[in-house]
């Protein structure tokens, strides 16, 4: 099809929208409610362009036709866009200076780009109550611009539907049912709504103050653990290109702000693999419940607790790497060093908002009184912390993690990307069953950003059917198969967030598919660069088993590294 944009001729494919053509051709059209992977709703009207009839149409939703003539910068277009921005501002708290998204806000950017210099429209503002009740995600309805991105994310991608539009017209709001708080809903705290939100209406619950107080308390021994996906993303907060690997700068920065010891969650990931591979083999050999679903993603765990409680016994009983690391610090490490576990403060740095909820699960406490992980900071909060502390992150030297819970292999780091847990587990399961490593360590068929990746692998005489699933809407068909008793799978990895932890709800904003791709590439680059790439070669893990746990699946392992789940009600 031939179309004209701003009087220049372009070639377009049938079925494409105007926006798809302009993005390809490098013509900028502002968007607000648009999300590349989701159904366009045409709600915000900021992307309107003028077509040859003089009509304004939304570029995000309007398909091209042969002979179409588009103006992206006519007087009518400019006036309309500016008016729309002014209308949004008129109903927005003018508190940019104290907003969590200050300097990182789509509305602020648009107002700057379109030269809004006055409050043209003044009047009533929508009121709504702050929802601070959940341990992970906060909502501020007054900041909401009702673009609906979070709603589509929650419904279309995550299949949870904890929030939706309520009320009408000017008094419309995005809210859980009956104006309740998120913590009373089936919200799984994945934080994808926070990633989707263009303004500060949805944000993680911040625990910075708690973290600082622990660091400043000389009586407290602060131990940090850092999740795999943080090291490929935090650079974005400091202006580094997406996918920059900052593996050594993170421990260096943590030491400089006063954290006593820095362990690596990747170590616990290796430990998880030992337990989970063992669990898989046991279930296969003893005719246990199959498929085995992974249990690293706390959003996924809450999802299955809400929506498929009858299938909980298919989920691995292994704690997540965060949970295992917390347990090991407060038992093994405390015992080894003679520190009082009550004086140890575990500070988790995670790409995730749901980890904040997970840390508070009472069943994840070795002492049964105090949590194993005391506080969880998102990648974004961690970056904020470093900025407050005056850390010049980009100039940090490359330093290492501390022993004995700091050593890790390539298998641990790939936990950060969807398919990684599966790949890491297969590497070790193969070894456990056959006594030798796979010929080809790279299991590329389960890598990539697709929501569902299926494969099969021959281990010894058996062929295992496996799948890696991310984005919760993709998991339902697998769960339905299990429910109906016709699932052919042995092992299924589930990550709540599309693409896995690299796209977690706590990662730097704004997010984009290109950034996620870069972060994923970086994860596999770290894996390739490491001398050891299988969990069973992690010497610290071996030492842990030799000196403390016994062997994978032992009684002590079960006591400290495994957990249980519960049915949760949904409104």
């Amino acid at each position, binding site marked *: 099809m031939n179309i004209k944009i701003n009087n220049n001729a372009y070639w377009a494919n049938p079925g494409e929208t105007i926006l798809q053509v302009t993005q390809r051709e490098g013509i900028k059209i502002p968007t607000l409610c648009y999300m590349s992977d989701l159904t*366009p*709703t*045409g*709600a*915000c*009207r*900021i992307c*309107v362009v003028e077509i040859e009839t003089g009509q*304004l149409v*939304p570029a995000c*939703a*309007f*398909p091209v036709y042969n002979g179409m003539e588009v103006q992206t910068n006519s007087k*009518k277009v400019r*006036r*309309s866009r500016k*008016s*729309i921005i002014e*209308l*949004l501002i*008129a*109903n927005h708290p003018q508190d940019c200076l104290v907003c969590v998204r200050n300097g990182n806000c789509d509305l602020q950017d648009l107002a700057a780009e379109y030269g809004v210099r006055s409050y*043209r*429209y*003044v*009047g*009533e503002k929508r009121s709504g109550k702050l929802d601070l009740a959940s341990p992970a995600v906060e909502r501020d309805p007054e900041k909401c*611009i*009702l673009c*609906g991105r979070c709603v589509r994310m929650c419904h279309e991608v995550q299949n949870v539907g904890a929030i*939706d*539009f309520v*009320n*009408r*017209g*000017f*008094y*419309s709001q995005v809210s859980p049912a009956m104006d309740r708080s998120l913590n009373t809903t089936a919200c799984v705290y994945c934080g994808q709504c926070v990633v989707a939100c263009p303004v500060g209406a949805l944000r993680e619950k911040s625990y910075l103050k708690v973290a600082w107080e622990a660091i400043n308390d000389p009586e407290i021994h602060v131990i940090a653990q850092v999740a795999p996906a943080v090291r490929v993303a935090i650079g974005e907060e400091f202006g580094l290109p997406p996918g920059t690997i900052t593996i050594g700068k993170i421990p260096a920065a943590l030491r400089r702000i006063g954290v006593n010891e820095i362990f690596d969650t990747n170590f616990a990931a290796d430990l998880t693999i030992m337990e989970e591979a063992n669990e898989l083999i046991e279930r296969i050999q003893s005719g246990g419940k199959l498929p085995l679903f992974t249990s690293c993603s706390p959003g996924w765990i809450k999802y299955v607790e809400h929506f498929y409680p009858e299938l909980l016994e298919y989920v691995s009983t292994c704690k997540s790497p965060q949970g295992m690391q917390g347990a090991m610090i407060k038992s093994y490490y405390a015992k080894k060093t003679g520190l009082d576990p009550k004086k140890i403060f575990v500070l988790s740095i995670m790409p995730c908002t749901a980890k904040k909820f997970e840390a508070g699960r009472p069943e994840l406490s070795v002492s049964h009184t105090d949590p194993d992980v005391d506080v969880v900071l998102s990648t974004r909060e961690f970056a904020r912390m470093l900025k407050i502390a005056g850390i010049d992150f980009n100039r940090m030297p490359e330093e290492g993690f501390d022993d004995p819970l700091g050593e890790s292999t390539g298998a641990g780091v790939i936990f950060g990307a969807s398919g990684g847990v599966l790949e890491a587990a297969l590497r070790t399961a193969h070894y456990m069953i056959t006594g030798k490593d796979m010929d080809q360590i790279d299991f590329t068929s389960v890598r990539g950003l697709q929501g569902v990746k299926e494969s099969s692998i021959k281990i010894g005489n058996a062929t295992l059917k496996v799948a890696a699933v991310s984005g919760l809407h993709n998991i339902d068909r697998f769960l339905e198969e299990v429910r109906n008793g016709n699932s052919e799978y042995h092992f299924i990895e589930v990550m709540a967030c599309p693409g896995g932890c690299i796209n977690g709800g706590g990662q730097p904003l704004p997010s984009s598919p290109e950034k996620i791709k870069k972060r994923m590439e970086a994860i596999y680059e770290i894996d390739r660069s490491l001398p050891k790439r299988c969990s069973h070669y992690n010497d610290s893990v071996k030492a842990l088993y030799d000196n403390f746990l016994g062997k994978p699946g032992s009684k002590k392992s079960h006591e400290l590294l495994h957990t249980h789940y519960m049915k949760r009600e949904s409104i």
Partner: protein
Amino acid sequence: MQSFKEILSQKTLSDKFLEIINDRYDASKAGISPDMIRSLKSRLSLDAVDKPIIMIGMGTCGLANGAQAVYDKFEEELASRGIEAELTRVGCVGFCAEEVIVDVKIPGFPRISYKRVTPENVGTIIERTIVNKEPVIQKALGKYPDADAALWNEIPLIHDIPFFKWQKKVVLENCGVIDPESIDQYLARGGYSALSIVLKNKSPYDVIKDVLASGLRGRGGGGFPTGKKWEFAYNTQSDQKYLICNADEGDPGAFMDRAVLEGDPHRVVEGMIIAAYAIGASVGYIYCRAEYPLAISRLEKTIADASAYGLLGKNILKSGFNFTLKIKKGAGAFVCGEETALINSIEGKRGMPRPRPPFPAVSGLFGKPTIINNVETLANVSLIFSKGADWYSAIGTGSSKGTKIFALSGKVVNTGLVEVPMGTTIRRIIFDIGGGVPDGKHFKAVQIGGPSGGALPEQHLDTEIDYENLKKAGAMMGSGGLVVMDEKTCMVDLAKYFMQFITSESCGKCIPCREGTKRLLEILERITRSYREEETEVDSLMRFQGMLYLERLANVIKDTSLCGLGQTAANPVISTLRYFRDEYEAHLYERTCPSKACRQMLTYTIIPEKCTGCTLCAMRCPVEAISGNRKEPHFINQDICTHCGQCELNCRFDAILAE
């Protein structure tokens, strides 16, 4: 009792009706109930009544005016006097101003319509008309031109009285005349004959060609050619298609769809079956607002009866065509009258519009090709086939064919439903049919097309109504509400009223409609506000600033909104600004309301010479702003007065001055 054969031989039976009955019932078996025969006989032509029939207009309008009490009184009186007569509920004949309307037909005399009947009149009507066989002249509206119409010369023919004289009732031909719950009466008046013609003689594409040739355009507002719309769906290949009847009539001041659904529901169903056949839909929905309970219950009966007669369901009239019909109740959102929001609502989602394209004819309900037509559009369809596309296209103007029903209300003598040929002037509707503005007041404007339409002033009275002319003048056909306004109506206040409606009905999806209409309303509120309420200079400044941006904002809302509701949301402001800018300026600069309708701008004072000191105003004042001694002139404290107008309303001596 007549045999079935005799019934079939009656010349008054429509030939097509015979065909249908023949299809359904084997003549030799005569499996038709005696009740039906009797009912047919008496209804087919009033010539044949063998006992008095009393027909009471019991649409929602009649009921609201007390028709049920009248009905009950008739029942009671007839029983107590031992008079054998038949009591029937009919729909609304359209003359709202004269409700409750009761028609009486006694053997040998013309059918006579009585107006404004109350239970107190029932005894007189029975006594005089049924017993003494004479008309009650002071209550008579007119008589029907039936076989006995030569009698009772003192009564005018109903079609000669001004309200009906200029109307052309084709879509409404049965409303108020037949019992809407009787499929037999509908059949007897030629109902379902169009369907029979279509299914026997026409291919689906023939149907579309005929509808195209008729020139029928959508009556829901946009005026899109109905045949063209059907053609889109016809040309889209799909395993499943849907037809939806949009009965979510929501414009303030529009009630024609309700009248048709309550008064002649089979006509709508027949139109739907024909439309479904044309586009290839096997399932249809009637999306009717839940505020129309009577329409819904009648539709339920209509669907049940039509199904029992083989007119709905499988293999309709042995044609092999299948069509089932469901009713979906709307929960009262104005926006659900918009096609895509309506589809969302049927799908169980929040009623919010979707971007178009894709148009519903390509991807609509559950992603399948879907045609949505308004009640009145569908009620027109059968006429195209029973009377012919040529007959149909001969009515109306070059671009707009057929008739249009208008709901006439506001400051007009004869309020009611009016069906006129396209091309009738606004003046004819308001002054000839409507009887003009009451109480000797002057006509100021008429709001056409509901909140999405526009207010046209006197200079447009001679506009011949059709889609294009109304658009040119700055209004729109819309659903056909005509609200007449006199000199006491303030146009700024009118715009404010409609903006209040729009802001509370906006779905909240797109920014210009959600945020913009609210700001428009606030600007209007500011300029109609008392200066006493402005506390700071900034407030005064805001008042002027708002006026500067009013037009710009209205145009942005019009240009950028997602759906039809939003795109027309600013029309009340745009059209009143176009014709009545001076009124805005008077409010803004002179702080007066020329029509004295914006009470907040008025100062209420008491004329001492006229005040008798009766104290009534002081007693009625809700804020105790009036003081004074008994039998001495009273005084209004302006600092307390809230401009509610109660004193003016209650003063018996004209002593309150508001200016």
